[in-house]
């Protein structure tokens, strides 16, 4: 971590998660962390390294390999007044806890008529491009964004990681906090010192443009931005929006941009059918049809069961900045 000014520190995304969790543990004794290998091992990415020594085994809890229990226990802790941050070691392992997330956590407030809330965070690394193969590459956001009662955050930049994780921990209801593992050490950025929050449901216009709106999140935000900057040199003006929150979704930012550029490209790594892009696309068709000057397009992962381990298969699954630039060019030319 390098300090470049008195007010900010340069961190990567792993360091931002770690620093935010550390500050939360320090400042709020209700905050605790539970998950596989979060204690002695300090998390597989070393996010919670040495936490157990400082905060003790009652707050940094190593669990068995039992995701349903991790989330289920966290639900109980949250209902009784703690602020648990549950970790699913890799998003690929989240399926056993589906019932605890969708059937329990998301519905606590409703089924108790507001008597209980479930202020918990579920952190999990997701996404591919790291030779993680079938069990360490999946994107899970579309499985959960359909569920009312869940909030889903997927930041791309270290500064957003900190602000949004603080908000997620403060939130009175369950928040899924998705961290793209390829950005963990790849992406560095300045992070403001001190405590701050970023509201959920607020997208970030990373680059303004006039000819095409590109909406993305996670790792692909960075690649879309790279492609858009490259196109700037060709005289093509692309607006890039980082969704940051998947649900609640910042409809206003998307609609305002589309009304300006009249064209919309949605890029995500998760597969296309029923993905986040489908919802955005339907929303824009419902609310801004008469501003559209081209068919909405989605550049997404293929509808295959998993990301292959072999490099050509992984590359085929992932979109590259060059592919993104091609799609942008075609849409602007349309």
């Amino acid at each position, binding site marked *: 971590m390098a300090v470049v000014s008195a007010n900010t520190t340069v961190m990567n995304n792993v360091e931002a998660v770690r620093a935010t969790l550390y500050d939360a543990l320090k400042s709020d004794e209700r905050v605790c962390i539970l998950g596989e290998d979060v204690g002695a091992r300090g998390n597989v990415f070393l996010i919670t390294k040495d936490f157990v020594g400082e905060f003790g085994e009652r707050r940094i809890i190593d669990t068995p390999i039992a995701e349903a229990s991790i989330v289920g226990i966290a639900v109980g802790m949250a209902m009784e007044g703690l602020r648990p941050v549950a970790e699913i070691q890799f998003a690929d392992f989240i399926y056993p806890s589906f019932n605890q997330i969708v059937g329990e956590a998301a519905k606590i407030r409703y089924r108790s008529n507001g008597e209980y809330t479930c202020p918990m965070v579920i952190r999990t690394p997701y996404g591919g491009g790291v030779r993680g193969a079938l069990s360490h590459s999946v994107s899970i956001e579309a499985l959960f964004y359909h569920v009312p009662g869940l909030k889903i955050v997927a930041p791309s930049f270290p500064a957003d990681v900190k602000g949004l994780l603080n908000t997620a921990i403060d939130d009175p209801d369950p928040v899924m906090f998705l961290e793209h593992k390829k950005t963990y050490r790849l992406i560095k950025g300045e992070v403001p010192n001190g405590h701050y929050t970023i509201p959920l449901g607020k997208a970030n216009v990373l680059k303004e443009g006039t000819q095409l709106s590109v909406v993305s999140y996670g790792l692909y935000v960075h690649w879309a931005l790279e492609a858009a900057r490259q196109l700037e040199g060709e005289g093509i003006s692309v607006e890039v929006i980082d969704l940051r929150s998947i649900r609640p979704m910042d*409809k*206003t930012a998307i*609609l*305002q941009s589309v*009304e*300006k550029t*009249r064209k919309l490209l949605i890029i995500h790594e998760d597969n296309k059918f029923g993905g986040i892009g489908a919802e955005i696309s339907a929303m824009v068709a419902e*609310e801004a*049809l*008469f*501003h*559209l*000057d*081209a068919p909405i397009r989605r550049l997404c992962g293929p509808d295959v069961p998993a990301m292959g381990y072999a490099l050509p298969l992984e590359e085929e699954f992932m979109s590259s900045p060059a592919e993104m630039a091609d799609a942008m060019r075609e849409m602007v*030319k*349309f």
Partner: protein
Amino acid sequence: MATTITMPQLGETVTEGTVAQWLKSVGDNVDKYEDFVEVSTDKVNAGVPSPVTGTIRELLVKEGETVATGTPIAVIDETGATPAAAEAPAAAPRAESTPAPQTPSGNGAAASVAESAEIESAARGASPAVRRLAREHHVDIRTIKGSGANGRVTADDILAAARSGAATQIAAPPAPPPSAPPPAAAPPIVPGATQTSQYAQPVPGTFVTLTQARRIIAERMVESRHTAPHAWSMVEIDVTDVWQWRVREKDRFERETGFRLTLLPFFIRAVVKSLAEFPLMNAKFVAGNGSAPPSIYVNPEMNIGLAIGLPANLVVPVIRHADKLSIKGLAAAAGELIENARKGKLGVDDLAGGTFTVNNNGANGSWASAPIINAGQAGIVTMEAIVKKLIVRNDDTIAIRQMMNACLSLDHRVVDGYVASGFLASLKRHLEAMGPQGEL
């Protein structure tokens, strides 16, 4: 080679058409693109151009008869037929939401005859944005050469044509374009005028030269007052509870957002709820022209104009999709518009597209006013001064309550008192239901 002509679909939701008048009889020659029949629908009356050059062989539908779109109405024997136009039925070229095409005006970007077939097909594949912009700017898509892929007409092409005036303007526009102010004309010379002064510092005995904004205001007000018959109504609303709600939230809101929390966003929230119940208040009257009957267009969006008084003129920036915003969102949007208005930093987009106007008029103590409708809208509502009054309630107790008048001017062509008073009653109900228990 015979070509069967079918009833064209004149508009996206039109399912049938009436043959108003045959312009050709059996045996007459007809040129490609020449109108051979006049068709009327519930939306438009239009001449229908022939897709081929030839001789009328058969007229299959009588004048006055209504048939479904796609029904054969005539057969034309084609002369000099191209193989592609063989016996297959051909829909008459579809009129683009407006009556028959005009002759290209011949200047600039207007297309040559040789290109017209390609352009015709481009118009048929026009995107929703192109259709909307063409309608708003009264541009005939078919006269424009597209710059998009495969000659597609793009939204920018329409805007460029509208700016240059190169494309065929559709005659007798149904309503003035809401976002395009009239071009600046040279100020008229007033005989004998020698001394001038500024509007903001008027000097007696001098002429004030109008700014562009002032001139547009003058023209718009005259236009609205002359074309839209104004009617007026007023309702008294108990705003005690909503006032307390604002008082409870305002410090926190100002701390969090930097914007002052006034009652305006609460008013707008109530207005959009009432507009949702009375969509005709969120509409506009579209005057008829030679062939199209007048109609009322019910806006799909709720874009609320805010009347903001500045020293030299009035501006009415617009909160788009106001019905999609929470009170908090409305407060931020209004705060930003007001700040930009005062700094003179409003853009063209900020001022365009309003569908209904709210004027928070009471700050200086006015308790009733009769506003002029923003041209192209169905109504404007003013919120007047909030005054503490002794009120006799239904149970005969007496209470001190904060009361406010809301005044509505309405375009009587669009709505009658029935709808207007329903709208005001709804506004009163929504505002009186708001109280400190609500969520911003």
